[in-house]
C-alpha cells in the first residue's frame, strides 16, 4: 500500500475535501460511506468544544448564548490547521474570532486573548475599543447570565463606542474598563488601538 496516499485520503475525508470514486481503494470507499466517518467528524467537533469551554470560557459562553457556538467551532476546524497541543487551540481560536462580523464576539475574544496573555506573564498593555459598555457584557459571560439585549443591539456598528478595556498585568485583576476619553489621557497607545 502507499501509506502517504492512504493517510492523505483519510485526511481529505475528515476535512470533507476528498471526493472518493469507484477507482479509489476499496477501503477508502468503505470509510467514505461509513457512519463512523460522520461520527469521527462529530468527535473532532466535540473535542474542540470541550477544550475551548475550559480554555476560553468567556468567549465560549458568548458564542453559546448567541446560538452560534457549533457553527463557529465547525468553521474554525475547517479553516484552521488545529494542533493536538490543547493549550494552543484557544489562542488561535480567539485570534481567528478577532475578525468576526459580530463586533461583540470580536471584542470578547480579543479581551480574553489579551487577558490570557497577561496572566501568562506578558508585560505589554493591551487596549481594546468596545462598541458597548464592556462591564455588563463581561459580567454576563463570566456568570453565564442573559446578555444585556439593549447593548448587544449595537454590536454591528463598525466604529468603536466610547468604552475601552485596558488589560495589563500591572492592574488589579488584570484589566480595567475606562471611558476612551479618560484612557486617551491615562493610557499612552490607545490611539493606535482605535
Amino acid at each position, binding site marked *: 500500500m502507499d501509506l502517504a496516499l492512504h493517510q492523505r485520503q483519510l485526511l481529505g475525508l475528515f476535512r470533507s475535501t476528498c471526493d472518493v470514486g469507484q477507482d479509489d481503494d476499496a477501503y477508502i470507499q468503505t470509510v467514505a460511506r461509513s457512519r463512523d466517518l460522520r461520527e469521527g467528524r462529530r468527535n473532532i467537533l466535540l473535542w474542540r468544544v470541550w*477544550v475551548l469551554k475550559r480554555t476560553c470560557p468567556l468567549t465560549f459562553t458568548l458564542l453559546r448564548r448567541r446560538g452560534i457556538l457549533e457553527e463557529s467551532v465547525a468553521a474554525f476546524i475547517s479553516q484552521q490547521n488545529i*494542533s493536538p497541543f490543547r493549550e494552543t487551540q484557544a489562542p488561535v481560536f480567539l485570534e481567528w474570532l478577532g475578525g468576526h462580523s459580530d463586533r461583540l464576539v470580536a471584542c470578547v475574544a480579543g479581551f480574553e486573548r489579551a487577558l490570557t496573555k497577561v496572566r501568562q506573564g506578558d508585560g505589554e498593555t493591551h487596549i481594546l475599543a468596545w462598541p458597548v459598555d464592556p462591564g455588563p457584557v463581561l459580567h454576563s459571560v463570566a456568570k453565564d447570565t442573559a446578555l444585556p439585549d439593549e447593548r448587544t443591539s449595537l454590536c454591528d456598528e463598525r466604529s468603536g463606542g466610547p468604552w475601552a478595556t485596558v488589560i495589563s498585568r500591572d492592574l488589579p485583576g488584570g484589566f480595567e474598563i475606562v471611558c476612551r476619553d479618560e484612557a486617551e489621557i491615562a493610557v499612552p497607545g490607545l490611539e493606535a488601538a482605535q
Partner: protein
Amino acid sequence: MTGDGTPVGGGARVSMPIGVTYEGRDPALLERVLPLVDYIEVTLETVAEVHGDEIRLSDEIMAELDAMGDAAQIIVHGVGLSIGSHEGWSPTYLRLLDDFLDRFEVAWHGEHLGYTKVDGEHLGIMLAVPKTEQVLDMVCERVERIQNRYKIPFALENIVHVIPDYPGDYTEAAFLNALTQRTGCGLIVDLYNLECDAHNHGFDIPAFFDELDFSAARELHVACGVEDNGFLLDVHSQLTRESTRDLAREAARRSAGSARAAVYEFMPEAVPGLGHDAIAAELIRLRQAFAD
C-alpha cells in the same frame, strides 16, 4: 507511598500501584490526589503554552510539579508525537520531552500507536495505523530511535479505532506483539479504548486478551467517556465503570507483575463536573479493586 507493591500506610498489601493524570493549574486537586497515588501522569501537550510563535512548558505547572517532590513518581504520556505519520513524527513533541526530562526524573514515557497529522496538517483526531508489515517496520525503526535517544523505558498504547480498521497483515494483538518483541518497548493497555472498540465496532476483547503477550504490558489505563449517537466516545469525562475495572484486574492478572501501574485518566475539562472528592474516591476504589 511506594510504587513497588510494598504496604502503604500499614494497610493491605498493594497488588498494583495506582496513577492519575494531572494536567496542572489545579493545585488543590494535586494536593487531594497525591496521598492516594504512586504515579502522576503528565501529558506534555496540556502542560505546554503558547508564547509568541513558541510552544513551551508552562512555568506555572513546572513549579507545581517541582513542589510535588518525591510524593509520587512522574510518568510522561504524550498525544502529539504522531509516530505513525508517513512523513515522520512531531519534532515539537520531542523538544518538549527533552525539556521536561532535563528538569524531572521520569519513571517511563509513553505515547499512542497512531497518528495525528498528515503532511503537517493536523487531523484533529488520532487514527490507528494500518497493521501491515510495511507500517510495522516503520514504527519499529522509530521506536528504536526513541529508545536510543532517551534512556528510560518507552511504551505504546492501543488506541481507539475511530473508523473501520484497514485490512492489514496482523490482528490488533499480533501487531502489538510483533512491535514489542522486535523493539523491546513496553505496552500501555487501555481497557476503556478496548471497550469503545467493542461497543462501536464489535471488537472481540476476550480474543484480544488471549492473543496479546501481556508480559510486555507496562501500564494499564482506565477511564470512561460518554455515548453520543450510539457511539462510545474516548473522552475521559466520567468515573470508571465496573466493567472497565474488571478488565483492568484481568489484564493485571495476565501481566503477572509486568504492569507497573494502573492509571485513571480524565481530561482537565472534566474536573469541574467530576469534582475533587469523586476523583479521590475513584482512586481509592481503583486501589481497592486491585487489592481484592
